[in-house]
């Protein structure tokens, strides 16, 4: 019967999705459980910090600069209509620190570092390096996965802060240097409007949450990938898609919790 078959298909997909979420959650706790040994061998985390954090620097800095410059240009065009160009600094800084810094940096991080993590671990699994480690009584989660997880969590807030800081200077460059908004009111209004706890610290919390989500998704997809060339490529694609959607959805929830209502 075609109707029963369709319903069975829906059921199969639902069970599959729930099963994967459950596996990912168990995987997350497994990483936390094996993290102790990776902190004792801190050079592994430093090595991963280099490949996730340092190698993402260029794309983050360049993207931050251009996003800030576009914000300055567009913000000026709109604020000019109301004669409040002096509020340009406020707009650029709040937009970057609250939203664009954490979100865009996390999206770039997911496609730059997350996809690389998935591909690396997926290929390790396909070439049976992970099984070989288990044979040598080295737990692959402690040796391979946990250092990458902590490197992602440490580097994400730093990258988001760099993105916002560079973006503010991009906005400054376009607004003050190019267009000629008054420099004093640009900085003074910004400082009066941006609160350290409410805006900057909440932005850091956001990027921390995004970093956790992206690294867990990337590592799980890699660890769970079918050990074939096709499987690894599919897992890499899924990492970028799933973590981008997760970032945007988490961002809405966090924004509603932090800035909604007041």
């Amino acid at each position: 019967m075609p109707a029963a078959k369709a319903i069975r298909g829906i059921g199969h997909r639902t069970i599959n999705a729930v099963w994967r979420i459950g596996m990912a959650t168990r995987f997350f706790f497994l990483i936390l459980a094996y993290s102790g040994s990776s902190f004792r061998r801190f050079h592994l985390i430093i090595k991963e910090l280099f490949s996730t954090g340092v190698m993402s620097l260029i794309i983050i800095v360049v993207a931050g600069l251009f996003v800030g410059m576009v914000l300055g240009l567009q913000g000026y065009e709109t604020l000019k209509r109301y004669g409040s160009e002096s509020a340009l600094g406020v707009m650029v800084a709040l937009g970057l620190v609250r939203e664009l810094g954490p979100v865009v940096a996390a999206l770039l991080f997911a496609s730059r570092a997350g996809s690389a993590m998935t591909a690396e671990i997926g290929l390790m699994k396909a070439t049976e390096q992970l099984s070989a480690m288990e044979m040598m009584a080295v737990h692959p989660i402690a040796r391979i996965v946990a250092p990458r997880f902590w490197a992602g969590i440490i580097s994400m807030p730093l990258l988001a802060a760099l993105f916002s800081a560079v973006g503010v200077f991009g906005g400054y460059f376009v607004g003050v240097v190019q267009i000629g908004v008054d420099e004093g009111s640009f900085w003074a209004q910004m400082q009066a409007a941006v609160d350290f706890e409410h805006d900057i610290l909440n932005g850091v919390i956001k990027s921390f949450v995004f970093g956790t989500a992206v690294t867990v998704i990337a590592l799980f997809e890699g660890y769970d990938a079918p050990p074939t060339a096709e499987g690894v490529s599919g897992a890499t694609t899924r990492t970028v898609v799933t973590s981008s959607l997760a970032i945007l959805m988490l961002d809405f929830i966090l924004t509603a919790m932090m800035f909604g209502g007041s």
Partner: protein
Amino acid sequence: MERTGIDLWVGMFVVAGVAALVMLAMKVGNLGTYNVSDAYKIHAYFTNVGGLKATASIKSAGVLVGRVESITLDTQRYEAKVVMSIDKRYQFSRDTISKIQTSGLLGEQYVGLDAGGDAEMLKDGDQLKKTQSAMVLEDLIGKFLYSKAEEPAK
């Protein structure tokens, strides 16, 4: 790459990230501009605070001297009680007048302090007796319309 090279790059990355965070806090945020740790508290009653909010600035002669700590309705007097924390460096006489003012025509509202001539200074927990409430634009327009209507027709 060699281990020391990686260490150097990661160290530079962490330092740059922390520096960006400090720069955001100091240059972009309000942490560098005003420190509330060394402050004393005073309060005042206003019949209408308008759009004044907690953390709004308190200025005297245009200089930032403190922040609004809290705004509550006192149900004994049915007036708004505004608690302000003022920087210890700035002392005000007891007959200081506090007004709720607006920066620009439609800008943010703040508390303005006009120093008086009393020799005694305000202490922690004191009350400002002389206050002037917020100027509400709708009331002003209403008054203007009524006064126009009362004028004899020419």
